[in-house]
């Protein structure tokens, strides 16, 4: 049986998780203090994901930037590809928090505004 230790990144508690992988490929997670920890541990070993937060230039507001985030976590392996796409994009003001800036980015998640711009 394989034992893997990791730190949960879901919240600032940072629980120490222990994942045991049984012969059939199933996972047993311990050390988590909430259900999200278990999901994180399994994801981390099968398909790690991260929420991307960055900024987008506002095309019609010289020198102003909009905070943006992926509406849900995206594949960790696609973070740099996503950054290249975001940095080639310009938002148009006015923008409200939650407005979609890039729809279904890389087939993973919408990129949405995390700040307002008038």
């Amino acid at each position: 049986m394989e034992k893997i230790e990791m730190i949960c990144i879901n919240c600032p508690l940072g629980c120490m998780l222990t994942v045991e992988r049984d012969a059939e490929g199933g996972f047993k997670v311990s050390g988590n203090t909430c259900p999200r920890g278990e999901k994180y541990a399994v994801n981390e070993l099968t398909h790690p994901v991260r929420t991307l937060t960055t900024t987008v230039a506002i095309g019609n507001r010289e020198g102003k930037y909009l905070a943006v985030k992926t509406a849900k976590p995206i594949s960790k392996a696609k973070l740099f590809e996503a950054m290249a796409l975001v940095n080639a994009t310009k938002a148009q003001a006015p923008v409200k928090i939650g407005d979609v800036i890039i729809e279904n980015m890389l087939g993973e998640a919408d990129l949405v505004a995390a700040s307002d711009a008038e």
Partner: protein
Amino acid sequence: MMNYDIVIVGGGPAGMAAACAAYDNGTENILIVERDNALGGILRQCIHNGFGLHRFGEELTGPEYAARYAKMVAERGIDYIVDTMVLSLEKGEEGTVVTVMNSERGVFCINAKAVILAMGCRERPRGALSIPGTRPAGVYTAGTAQRYVNIKGKMPGKNVVILGSGDIGLIMARRMTLEGAKVHVVCEIMPYSGGLNRNIVQCLNDFDIPLKLSTTVAKIHGGERVTGVTIAKVDSNMRVIPEESEYIECDTLLLSCGLLPENELTSAAGIALDPITGGAVVNENRETEMEGVFACGNVLHVHDLVDYVSEESAVAGKSASEYIKNGAKKAALMGTVKIEKGNGVRYTVPQKIDVTGANEEVKVYFRVGKIYEGVNLKVSMNGEQVSSAKKRKMAPGEMEFVKIKKSVLDAAPNGTLKIEIVE
């Protein structure tokens, strides 16, 4: 002269939460004074997520968290002025005279029955770190770099070394990497990181950025611009070990070496400060030793979560409102409980508890001085154990708290409450 029941110094998360809590407690005549051009404070540049899990039950970015509070301030019609600095606080005939300045009106005074200090903190700059070497461009605090990247859209450099593993340093390691810079190493002079574990995982490990503990920057090289730094191991007395040093070529050095509550205004007003927190000495209501003046948020002690800043500021806001409702007078005291820092406890906030009989349960926040594993957290009153709890792990980077029941306080209103780590 302008007259307000409560004047709040600072429109960041602490100031906004205090304002809303005071308003909701029935004190509506409030003014927030903010020196930046909008409400929100440092959250405006903290575009990463992880804020609000406790307060809102969901994970928000800094600007989203700030926007929620700015909306609450707007919904309540609470007054605020921006681009305005508070210069001084003085005891007036009734309450406190707050002297402020802005470019529109110059210097003017505001009368306040109560004042809430919510100025936040600032980063320890290079000048306070005594790093040998030249003085080239390219040395920034992590927060300054964060403002350049996130607000101004400008990269401060391409080849980066970070000194200090506080959360801002870790967050900036990831941010600079995502924007195309090469972060060579994060050095931490202490044998442990001051940042959250989750940030070490998602900001360093995710991008294979090494974290070197017990390591510092021993020298900065460069003429007009940083050309490199010498990093070196330190011994247990934090002295550089010259035999264990290496040169790293870089054009940028980011400093994330601790935050200092910004209390020039507080000390100039003659308010007593706690030498460990760098913030005012307060009771459970977050009232300072100057009557009618309260403090909350990072100006009081540096928090690791904004959620706790909001919670603490709501206490200060509500208490300031109660003070106003009581005719701008303190409630009658049954006694004052002194809080003693036992083994392992570096500081507590509050530092004392004023017992009035009307107290509710009091949350005492504290930090430990080093990493502890498998210990007991013991609380006692006048030498008698009140509670003991098993702790799997305690670290200086994570603020802890204990709840003290009303019955414990009422039974010993002049007692000494001791918080200690039993190894």
